[in-house]
């Protein structure tokens, strides 16, 4: 990006000279610029750059599918080949957004089809994808190569069957954490016998059975297969056969891993694994017999990514044994049953660790097995750590201060104490100071989630120090409007703000209404904002969609401006009010 800026400034001064470059040259130069942000920057330099950049951009990222209409995207980027779309607000992951809120992909696919866009890649997050959409997608784009669905819903395996059957060039089918209605097995058979181009296949989130023979044959005819993540229905012996066929796998997701370690199949698996020298990423183990894990010890030294967050069956000694072999690990996703002691093992083994996520294994009982000690151990053992998501039982300011000092390079810092208003476990103080230390020390922090007992003070710190902050998640925190005001005032780069159950009201909401046009979205639920406040905001800012979702009857709602709003979601948009909002969503 630095070189790009100097590039731009050079040409800014030499504008006259720039006009003598034919478009093709600039286009060629722009080809080297791939990130959306950088290309957005390019397009703002001058009109001709805008024109050239827009006509040549192939990969487009739309962070909010309701911020712009598909037609407008197509118009601006006629060379569009690859698009990423996000739909529902982030809190939809936690069931805070009512089910039929929206985020339908169909209109986009339909628009692309109608305008004969040469679509090759589609990446969707938190969107509603119907079988019809998938069917239409599969039939409309002859060169379609890659479908990635993350946290989506609304489709069944019939939709997948259409994709498998009709997308003859398909290289990638990646389903991550989707809600899929499984009509059992047959979709995999829809891949044509001549379909040999598969590079990546991830169906770990499917709950139903799979035709194992079909799977084995599919793998056998896919010499380019590099990423394969199986679901729970794929047993041990199939895994062994598949690995024999695909020694070049880079990313493996194990389905069911249960067997007798004294059997011949097990020995065959050990041999097969030893041949898989390219595996860098390992996940799954959805069902597991832990004493069979040593089979994987031979590839552990090569692993850079390990995800055991869906494997509660791996614990204690077997888990630490496995981790001790993983010296090159950069990313680790784990359950909290690893415990503080287990995290100490990680800290002493995985010196290259960059990203750590510790998920709760038993959220309802609420006894997380990790505390601030594990976090401190990690921070002192892993200086390269830049991303963390940590669900824990308790936290202290001292620990956070230590962590801040040990790891000044955090880009993402998300802490979730299972009891959301718990104070410092030792001093019973709010955790303001600890988080203050984090934002003060980590100058590059872009994403932050807070929990614990927190007052307005922590938001003052955030406003003061978190200059690069782009996304902030707040729950059960703060004392008054001041808290939110500090953030809106101070965080110049803020793009997404999501708040629940915090005492911020109209005073904060209306303090700087122009700010919201510089942000992607704001979510506030169970706060103090009233209908009147939202109406005022909507009136002042016509280019925002201010959506209200209330649990009560809408009719009562209309007459009482003083009534508090259950859920408010606002976002900037060029597309005006959306037409697909359900009854319980009211756009002001």
């Amino acid at each position, binding site marked *: 990006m630095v070189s790009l800026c100097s590039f731009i400034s050079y040409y800014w001064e030499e504008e006259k000279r720039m006009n003598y470059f034919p478009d093709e040259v600039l286009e060629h130069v722009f080809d080297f610029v791939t990130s959306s942000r950088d290309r957005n920057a390019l397009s703002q330099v001058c009109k001709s750059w805008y024109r050239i950049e827009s006509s040549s951009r192939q990969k487009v990222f739309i962070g909010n599918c309701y911020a712009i209409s598909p037609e407008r995207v197509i118009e601006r980027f006629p060379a569009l080949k690859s698009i990423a779309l996000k739909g529902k607000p982030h*809190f939809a*992951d*936690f*069931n805070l957004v009512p089910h039929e809120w929206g985020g339908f992909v169909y209109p986009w696919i339909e628009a692309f089809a109608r305008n004969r866009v040469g679509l090759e890649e589609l990446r969707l997050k938190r969107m509603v994808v119907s079988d019809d959409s998938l069917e239409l997608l599969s039939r409309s784009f002859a060169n379609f190569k890659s479908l990635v669905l993350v*946290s989506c819903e609304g489709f069944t395996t019939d939709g997948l069957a259409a994709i498998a059957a009709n997308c003859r060039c398909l290289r990638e089918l990646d389903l991550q*954490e989707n809600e899929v209605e499984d009509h059992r097995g047959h979709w995999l058979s829809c891949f044509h016998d001549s379909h040999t181009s598969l590079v990546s296949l991830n169906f770990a989130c499917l709950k139903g059975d799979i035709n194992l023979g079909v799977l084995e044959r599919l793998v056998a005819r896919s010499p380019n297969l590099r990423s394969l993540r199986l679901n729970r229905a794929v047993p041990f012996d199939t895994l062994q056969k598949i690995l024999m066929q695909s020694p070049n796998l880079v990313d493996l997701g194990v389905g069911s891993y249960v067997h*007798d370690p004294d059997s011949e199949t097990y020995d065959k698996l050990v041999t097969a694994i030893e041949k898989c020298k390219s595996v860098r990423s390992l996940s799954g183990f*959805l*069902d*597991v*017999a*832990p*004493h069979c894990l040593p089979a994987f010890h031979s590839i552990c030294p090569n692993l850079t990514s390990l995800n055991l967050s*869906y*494997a*509660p*069956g791996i614990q*204690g000694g077997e888990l630490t044994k496995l981790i001790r072999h993983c010296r090159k690990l950069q990313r680790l996703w784990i359950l909290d049953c690893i415990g503080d002691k287990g995290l100490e093992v990680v800290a002493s083994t995985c010196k290259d660790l960059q990203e750590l996520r510790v998920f*709760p294994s*038993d*959220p*309802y*009982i*609420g006894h997380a097995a990790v505390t601030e000690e594990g976090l401190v151990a990690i921070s002192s053992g892993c200086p390269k750590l830049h991303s963390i998501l940590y*669900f824990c039982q308790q936290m*202290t*300011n*001292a620990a956070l201060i230590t962590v801040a*000092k040990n790891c000044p390079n955090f880009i993402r810092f998300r802490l*979730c104490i*299972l009891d*959301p*208003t718990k*104070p*410092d476990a030792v*001093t*019973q*103080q*709010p955790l303001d*100071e600890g988080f*203050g230390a984090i934002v*003060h020390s980590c100058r590059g922090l872009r994403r932050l989630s807070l929990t614990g007992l927190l*007052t*307005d*003070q922590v938001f*003052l*710190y955030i406003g*003061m*120090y978190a200059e690069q902050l782009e996304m902030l998640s707040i*729950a059960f925190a703060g*004392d*008054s*409007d*001041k808290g939110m005001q500090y953030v809106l005032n101070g965080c110049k780069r803020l793009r997404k703000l999501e708040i*629940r*159950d915090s*005492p911020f009201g109209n005073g904060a909401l209306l303090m700087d209404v122009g700010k919201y046009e510089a942000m992607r979205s704001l979510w506030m639920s*169970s*706060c*103090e904002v009233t209908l009147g406040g939202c109406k005022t905001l909507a009136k002042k800012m016509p280019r925002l969609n201010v959506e209200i979702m209330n649990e009560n009857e809408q009719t009562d709602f209309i007459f009482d401006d003083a009534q508090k709003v259950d859920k408010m979601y606002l976002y900037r948009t060029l597309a005006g009010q959306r037409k697909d909002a359900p009854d319980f969503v009211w756009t002001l």
Partner: protein
Amino acid sequence: MEGCSKITEACPQLLDLIPREREWLVKRADERSSEEKKLELRLGPPGEEWSLRENAKNADDRERDESLLSLGYFSNGNQHTRKFSSPENLQPGSVWFNQQLSQQAKATPFLQFPSKTVTTRQSLPVMAKESSQPCCTKVVVDLQQSAEKKAFSPPAPANTAVVPSSSQKRTAPGSVVGWPPIRSSRKNLASSSSSKPVTDSQNESPNKKVASEKPVETCKKGMFVKINMDGVPIGRKVDLTAYDSYEKLSTVVDELFRGLLTAQRDSSAGGIMSEQEEEKAFMGVLDGSGEYTLVYEDNEGDRMLVGDVPWHMFVSMVKRLRVLKSSEVSALSLGSSKQGKESTDEMRRKNFAVKILF
């Protein structure tokens, strides 16, 4: 909030994390607005010498702020300003830090605040309240003296109205919607995943532990839920992790309450029940055909009929059990959205049948 429109009245907060950036901090201080200058974070790292940052504008306030270590305790506007130790008591950073660690090691939260910690919150500054007082001092928390900890005990009901109404929604973790913030696919992991036994037999159910293999620990330690029965004043507790099916649970319920029930009937009706009568009482707890029906209260507080969902899902949701007289059950709403012409009995039988097929 009015009194606090100027941040000058806020408590300066010093937390100097990285001394070598002092110059940077100085430079920043000049660039920042006067508001921001008043509040600075500083904490002397272990082993470093602490020093006081003078800021001329705040000289008066700072005078009282000799001590640099603060963990965020602000005295309440309505209370006396508290200092938990005079500056002379300060130890060099490293000692503080080491002591902090040892404190943590042995500290038990002897002040058990409820999760709503209303009282603690009241002791914290809402800056709005400080209009009349001079700016509160930064208070030093001297963790070396556990006596000081007792000073943290909930102050006399000073601030009454601090807690905003939305805090009433801040209830215990188990029953808050969308908390903890994890996707649904991660929610029932511990109970739905299994470590199957060495011999891969299909009939083993997920939660059963096979004695022959090495102890397979799951994250769930014995899960005891209360079970009460209509007409029996004293309840029992059952460990759901010890069972793997509804049938077994039904048997256990039978064992637990049969004796009690018999005793009560004996005492009230006189005479001894025949064995058949005893057995009849508990048959059909699950399918509605018997005299009693088993219901449970789930994690959302609703009363539900036992038997609808797969066993492992049931275990993850159940909070307590109840044995009701079947006649009572049909009169109650069962939380099912089925309308209709079917009798409750038929509904239950269908549910049970569905469960078997599952």
